[in-house]
């Protein structure tokens, strides 16, 4: 007689699949203003609950409430909203351009604009982001040229990266934006190394690492947390939890852990969860984490709870793996709408001004697009020389590459 029955394998499933009714009842949303704001030198052990809650500032009425509120002026908030609107418009134009065959591929931010736009505001010149492909708000909010970004997307004759990189894999040292890798999670541990270097040199600069919910399963994520924890690196470890890794729901990477932020607790890293669709909350938490890094208090892990409204990229169709109306049911709303309502409530904004801003921004983006397209698109007009294939593999071209370039006849 056997004491045990046969074993069975557990494979997690999302609450709902296509055809079902969207259900986010499992996403527990605390009231705005409910989560306390600890001192930056707090003992990580005493704020473990922050890894399981959600820091929110904007409530349903559009008011900014609680201990994380009150950091930004009307002008700063308007600028933040314009940045988010610009990013959304930029994305919309580039998506159309991709469909028109002007480039091979594109990835949009729809619904996630607050995260990179607000985070950028918490950094200082010289700080370095190690982004993924969905943080272009760091560039837009940092004032990087949209024409240069579009030239990169088009891989045209003015592409700052000479046509070598997939669209949206930008790079700008000057704007604190590390060259994006298409391989996931590799940049997370590099950010920790960059921060360690800053500390080794007794510099004042800090680093920010970026990763998505799905890629936290990579071993590089765990290596990054070990090194950040061991050497108390001045780094902000950001996890953007947008619920979906292409077609795979976040439960596959998260497993039995309550939250992604909770991953940091075992490393003794203060770990916070924040409403990623709340510009004010994102900024407040980023500022808190940056302050810790600058004061040499070490790393902070931040999970941004958000929702990827669009497809992963132009290469997938979300209706094949989640209900079409799921994004409408997302309980944290739209970041631009929420900030707009807040600004109107503050008396700093109006529907008319919003419409006017939308039109202005569209004009600016279209003008940038026109200029970028005058330098070529992927399949038409001017493009980078084939000679560029061989340049920059090494600082100095070794003999075997010189021979191959000659063979290529370029």
């Amino acid at each position, binding site marked *: 007689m056997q004491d045990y029955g046969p074993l069975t394998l557990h494979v997690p499933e999302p609450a709902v699949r296509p055809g079902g009714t969207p259900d986010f009842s499992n996403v527990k949303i605390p009231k705005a203003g409910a989560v306390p704001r600890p001192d930056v030198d707090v003992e990580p052990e005493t704020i473990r609950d922050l890894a399981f809650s959600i820091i929110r500032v904007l409530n349903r009425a559009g008011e900014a409430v609680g201990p994380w509120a009150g950091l930004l002026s009307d002008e700063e908030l308007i600028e933040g909203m314009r940045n988010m609107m610009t990013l959304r418009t930029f994305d919309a134009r580039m998506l159309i351009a991709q469909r028109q065959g002007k480039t091979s591929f594109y990835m949009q931010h729809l619904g996630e604009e607050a995260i990179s736009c607000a985070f950028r505001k918490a950094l200082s010149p010289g700080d*370095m982001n*190690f982004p993924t492909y969905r943080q272009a708000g760091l560039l837009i909010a940092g004032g990087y040229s949209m024409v240069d970004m579009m030239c990169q997307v088009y891989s045209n004759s003015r592409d*700052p*990266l*000479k046509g*070598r*990189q997939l669209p949206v*894999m930008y*790079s*700008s*040292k000057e704007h604190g934006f*590390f*060259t994006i*890798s298409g*391989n996931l999670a*590799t940049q*997370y*541990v*590099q*950010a*920790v*190394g*960059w*921060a*360690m*270097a*800053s*500390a*080794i*040199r007794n510099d004042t600069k800090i*680093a920010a690492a970026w990763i998505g919910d799905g890629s936290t399963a990579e*071993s*590089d994520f*765990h*290596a*990054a947390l*070990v*090194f950040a924890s*061991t050497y108390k690196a001045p780094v902000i470890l950001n996890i953007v939890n947008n619920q979906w890794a292409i077609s795979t729901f976040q439960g596959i990477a998260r497993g039995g852990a309550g939250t992604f932020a909770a991953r940091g607790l075992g490393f003794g890293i203060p770990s916070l969860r924040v409403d990623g669709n709340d510009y004010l909350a994102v900024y407040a938490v980023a500022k808190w984490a940056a302050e810790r890094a600058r004061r040499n208090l070490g790393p902070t892990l931040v999970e941004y709870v958000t929702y990827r409204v669009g497809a992963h990229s132009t290469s997938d169709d979300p209706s094949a793996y989640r209900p079409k109306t799921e994004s409408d049911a997302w309980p944290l709303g739209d970041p631009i709408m929420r900030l707009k309502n807040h600004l109107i409530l503050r008396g700093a904004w109006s529907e008319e001004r919003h419409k006017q801003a939308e039109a202005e921004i569209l004009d600016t983006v279209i003008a940038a697009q026109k200029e970028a397209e005058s330098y070529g698109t992927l399949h038409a007009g001017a493009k980078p020389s084939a000679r560029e294939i061989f340049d*920059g*593999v*090494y*600082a100095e071209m*070794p*003999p*075997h590459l010189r021979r191959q370039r000659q063979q290529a006849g370029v």
Partner: protein
Amino acid sequence: MARMTMIEAIRDAMDVMMARDERVVVFGEDVGYFGGVFRCTAGLQQKYGKTRCFDAPISEAGIVGTAIGMASYGLLPCIEIQFADYMYPAYDQIVSEAARLRYRSNGEFTCPMVIRMPTGGGIFGGQTHSQSPEALFTHVSGLKTVVPSNPRDAKGLLIAAIEDPDPVIFLEPKRLYNGPFDGHHDRPVTPWSKHDLSEVPTGHFNLPLGKASIVREGAAVTVLAYGTMVYVAQAAAAETGIDAEIIDLRTLIPLDLETIAASVSKTGRCVVVHEATLTSGFGAELAALVQENCFFHLEAPVARVTGWDTPYPHAQEWDYFPGPARVGRALVETMEA
């Protein structure tokens, strides 16, 4: 000049560079307080402090990944992977990141770093402490791969590697750490103190990457070797009495094709030797280059003597290792062909 073992020469290279340039940092598993399992970093933490030389968690991806971040910041990391066999968890960081930062960012971000790894067998290390993975690096664009064979070269090449603006894989044949080894495992060990190339220039001294060295001039056949096999080839030439010209490649990428082609064009015969497995090994690349560049001078097929296409065995180490008898046989066959 000073007499040094390979270990002392490697340590001296790091010491010289750490003293000259504050951007040089050294870290890895057991590298700090203890000074490394092979003692290559002994004393560096005491001399330069623990923010310049420190112990790392057992995470090769973490060691290489953080070093890439440091290099992109502007430091010059010279890191140790305890055994080349342990580098696989870091392979993504090496191939997709270190090797490509310069290219993909159009020069905005670069990765001036050295990854040191003990390589090769001959110490009864079994399959996880004996591998020679050089071909996994030479196959990757953006990397340079160096394999020194003596203390003088080890110091000069390591300093050049640290000064190089691109990532360099520095493979240290561990069987050569304490003396030259010609494959006669049953004979007494020769210490470096009895070898001319243990005379190492003191202070700053570098050798160019991409320059091979002719360690024995000869007219009958060219032997292309690197690392431990340089001594095995010399023993095989002496024991067969064949007037071989033995070339120590020193760096595999960039490769000194000029020296190789000039020699094979002169001798008309070529034997390629390495300890790594045969199929898709660096010897395949060398054989292809020789036939492309010297075909009309060749009087015999290019021969390869390498490790077998199996994992590196433990008890049967000397049946696996391509020793002087096997290399000698290939020399004789190539002369008779």
